[in-house]
């Protein structure tokens, strides 16, 4: 068994898991954080994306033991104090989800994308960078609109704060 120690959404957690346990299963089954989904189980669909040490990774393609010692943010940790994160608000505003299954991964991937492009985003970049997230309902158009809108609002927010 592997000892797994993480800081998840700001909270220090400890647990034990088989060495082969994937991070996504540790989050869902040991910690009850079921917002992170398992979609394809073959590392292609992106519903399982979380942030590990500030970077988006597929939690179905990382062992919990590999992640031990890291800081993890899941979809449950994206909003603050019960408020929707600007990306979540934009997804709601632009109807960027239908069944919602891919949405946690889309949001975590998009949050990383916006962080990496503080000067703003264009449509082509958003489409290219969401390559690791598959959605079977929306046709992506509204997701792209929502990410662009959130990027703009978050950029302006950052200017105000500065």
């Amino acid at each position: 068994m592997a000892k797994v120690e993480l800081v998840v959404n700001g909270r220090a957690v400890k647990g034990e898991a088989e060495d082969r346990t994937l991070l996504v299963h540790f989050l869902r089954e040991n910690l009850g954080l079921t917002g992170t989904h398992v979609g394809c189980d073959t590392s292609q669909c992106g519903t399982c994306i979380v942030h590990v040490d500030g970077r988006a990774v597929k939690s179905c393609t990382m062992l919990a033991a590999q992640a031990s010692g890291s800081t993890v943010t899941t979809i449950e940790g994206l909003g603050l104090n019960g408020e929707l994160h600007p990306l979540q608000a934009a997804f709601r505003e632009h109807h960027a989800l239908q069944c919602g299954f891919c949405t946690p991964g889309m949001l975590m991937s998009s949050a990383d994308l916006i962080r990496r492009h503080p000067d703003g985003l264009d449509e082509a970049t958003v489409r290219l960078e969401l390559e690791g997230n598959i959605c079977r309902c929306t046709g992506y158009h509204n997701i792209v609109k929502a990410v662009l809108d959130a990027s703009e609002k978050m950029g302006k927010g950052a200017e105000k704060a500065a």
Partner: protein
Amino acid sequence: MYETQYHRATSVEGAARQMGEAEDGKYLAGGMTLIPTMKQRLASPSDLVDLRRIEALKGVKITGRTVRIGAVTSHYDVSTNVELAKICPAITSLAGHIGDPQVRNMGTIGGSIANNDPAADYPSALLALDATIVTNRRSIAAADYFIGLFETALEPDEIITAVEFTAPDRAAYKKFPNPASLYAMAGVFVAKSGDTVRVAVTGAGENGVFRLEDAETALAADFHASALDNLTVDPNGLLSDLHASAEYRANLVKVMAKRAVAEIASRPM
């Protein structure tokens, strides 16, 4: 996934020792190929020795035009290295177009070339750049390192520590990615230093990456995309699968080579 024992190495020596004690171990870097393969039960190593947290294997070091990339440096860290982009934008651009952003955050240069997938991007760069693969035992020229499909000159317990090369005068990489998997169906890296031109092809060869000597000769005489107009790429020895026939790949190789040269020409000197 079958059961396995996970070990986290903190030094290269420690990793080699842990591997020596394992019955049928494998080194783990970013895991972007190994873990999916284990999930499908196509691989079942008794032990995994994780190299990703070894500090000595991390980072890009540039001295003049000499570049050393630590083996566990992620594709993202290569793609965003500003100093490297100044002297060899072809390699930062290549790293920035591997897989998807999540793969680039975890995947490493050492892992990519240890696996030597015939459609991986890095092997073409290292062969065209005449790079040296440094391990915990020796230095291996890229030309001697890439042997065949998923086959390299590495011994089973040998660890890649870094990749070294001299930045070329000019270079570019162009690929035609499979739209679903994003793996190169043909990828061509062109590097020019002085009068020497090296052209390496990935994604297309039955035995993995190879040099395209006819293109090198033509470009050494006249470094313009039009110099490749009369190039004929032999489909014999090229991969043929449900995505593309050997003949189609042969044409893609020529087109990607021309695009790479055209990109070099379009950049300011």
